[in-house]
């Protein structure tokens, strides 16, 4: 419990550092809200007056804490280019991205664990070798290319979905899920391959160990040894991998959203980067950072639940 509190505190500190660095970075680049609001034609006096009015000439730390606390209250400032509040632009977008990542994650878990076990059961035989070759190939396909291939096969040839015809979950949940399966597969493919490879090595490393021999000597059959003993130990590196994969997919979803024309947070981030719409970029970076740090925290907690050795020290 003490350990968990410590982890939780370190998560909060990480978030604080990240928020500070992000704010500092966007403070250092030339141009602020006042200049972007008035355009390039404005006189220096008017810019100065607006700065005063918007509170931009207050000391750095006052502005930072002001920004941080309003962010925590859900007020993320206003977009430069649309004049709308950032929170209204992002409202309803996060569930789209999160659904996609979670669907991909479920796919990874459901496919890679059985395939990884299967590969070790037939170690060195044809099936194992075939799985390894396919793995190596799938790992080399970047998600946006596999996304395009999936669009070609399922969208253009088989017509399982309409490419570009995204349906929001607010309109029709069934159609939304149906559309999101394909981007989820695209994200999952290289990750499944990596996970199978990792699980395979991890399981094979466990077999020669003493506890396996002990388990056999107590009369367990291979299946029992595998599921009760080996798999538990072999899953530890895989769980680390799952955590990294989740945060990786949150970031990678930005690209996949572009491939499948999905109006999630990735789309807004990209247009905001090219419009130099800094409040929006800042807010999205903070949101993604929060997700990533939170996922890392969850993985830490999960570790402690699965591996009692971690709880002791």
């Amino acid at each position, binding site marked *: 419990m003490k350990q968990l509190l410590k982890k939780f505190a370190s998560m909060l500190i*990480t978030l604080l*550092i*990240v928020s500070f660095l*992000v704010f500092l*970075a*966007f403070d250092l*680049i030339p141009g602020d809200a006042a200049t972007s609001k008035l355009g390039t034609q404005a006189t220096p006096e008017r810019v100065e007056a607006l700065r005063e009015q918007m509170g931009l000439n207050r000391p750095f730390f006052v502005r930072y804490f002001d920004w941080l606390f309003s962010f925590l209250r859900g007020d993320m400032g206003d977009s430069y280019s649309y004049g709308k509040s950032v929170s209204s632009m992002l409202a309803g977008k996060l569930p789209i991205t999160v659904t996609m990542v979670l669907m991909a994650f479920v796919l990874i878990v459901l496919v890679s664990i059985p395939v990884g076990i299967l590969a070790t059961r037939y170690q060195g035989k044809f099936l194992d070798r075939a799985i390894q070759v396919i793995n*190596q*190939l799938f*790992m*080399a*396909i*970047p998600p*946006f*290319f596999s996304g*395009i*291939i999936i*669009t*070609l096969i399922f969208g*253009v040839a088989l017509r399982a979905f309409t*490419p570009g015809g995204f349906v929001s979950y607010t309109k029709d949940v069934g159609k939304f899920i149906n559309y999101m399966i394909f981007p989820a597969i695209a994200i999952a493919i290289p990750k499944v391959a990596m996970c199978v490879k990792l699980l395979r090595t991890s399981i094979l490393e466990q077999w020669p160990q003493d506890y396996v021999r002990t388990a056999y000597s107590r009369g367990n059959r291979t299946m029992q040894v595998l599921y009760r003993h080996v798999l538990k130990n072999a899953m530890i590196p895989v769980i680390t991998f799952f955590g990294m994969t989740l*945060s*990786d997919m*949150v*970031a*990678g979803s*930005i*690209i996949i959203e*572009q*491939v499948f024309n999905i109006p999630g947070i990735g789309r807004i*981030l*990209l247009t*905001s*980067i*090219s419009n130099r719409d*800094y409040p929006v*970029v800042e807010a999205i*970076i903070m949101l*993604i*950072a929060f997700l*990533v*740090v939170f996922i*890392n925290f969850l993985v830490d907690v999960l570790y402690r639940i699965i591996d009692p050795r971690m709880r002791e020290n």
Partner: protein
Amino acid sequence: MKKKRKSLNFIIGAVLVGLMLIMVVWGWIKTPYDPNAMNTALKFARPSLAHPFGCDNFGRDVFSRILQGVGNTFIVSVGTVAIGTIVGILLGGLCGYYGGWLDEIIMRCNDVIFAFPSIFMALIVISLIGPGKYQVILALGIAFVPSFARLVRSEFMKQKNRDYCLAAELMGASSLRIMFVHILPNAFPVILSSVIIGFNNAVIAEAGLSYLGIGVQPPEASLGAMLSDAQTFLYKDPLLCIFPGVVMALMILGFALLADGVSEDK
């Protein structure tokens, strides 16, 4: 063992990377056509002897553009890996060799950056300094530093207590000399395989950023941007997507197999 047969992975990887290098040099010397020359008569031309990969929506020769794109990917990857390796070796070396509060501070910051996916770090840097080829090199280079620094640090920590380091110290070698003349060559095998993996990641990341339109800027060709352009014409000419995508996948496969082969060799 004196004679060790190279593994099959290593051979295939080396061949693929070799092919990539040939394409890079070929693209630098002379592409068959001007990669930006448009020709309305050749719009969506099918692959033929004159244009082995066909022509795109502006009638530009796809093969020439792929050569240029592979060249750009190569430049970005080399730049990225160079930044990541050099800064990573300096930071990781200092931390691993000296330890103490310097190590504590740098590795703390390192861990914070390391927690975030490299493509996300690159996006943050790009949103600060703007899109473009050289910006991408800087952005990805920064994003790759933490993993190298971490690796070099642990390797330096392992090596610094070995006898050869103590001997060098007794002979009066300075710390810097021990770090970079004595330890670094010994850490080389470990660094080498992660440099190759670095190339692998750099190719994926560069292609992703170019696909998003924030990498290499048009009209210059890049594999990612070619894919994104070709996607518009997916119904009309799916081959436009296939060629740059397959070339990209083969490059990634090449580096991955090479890295596997190198680490198996040890």
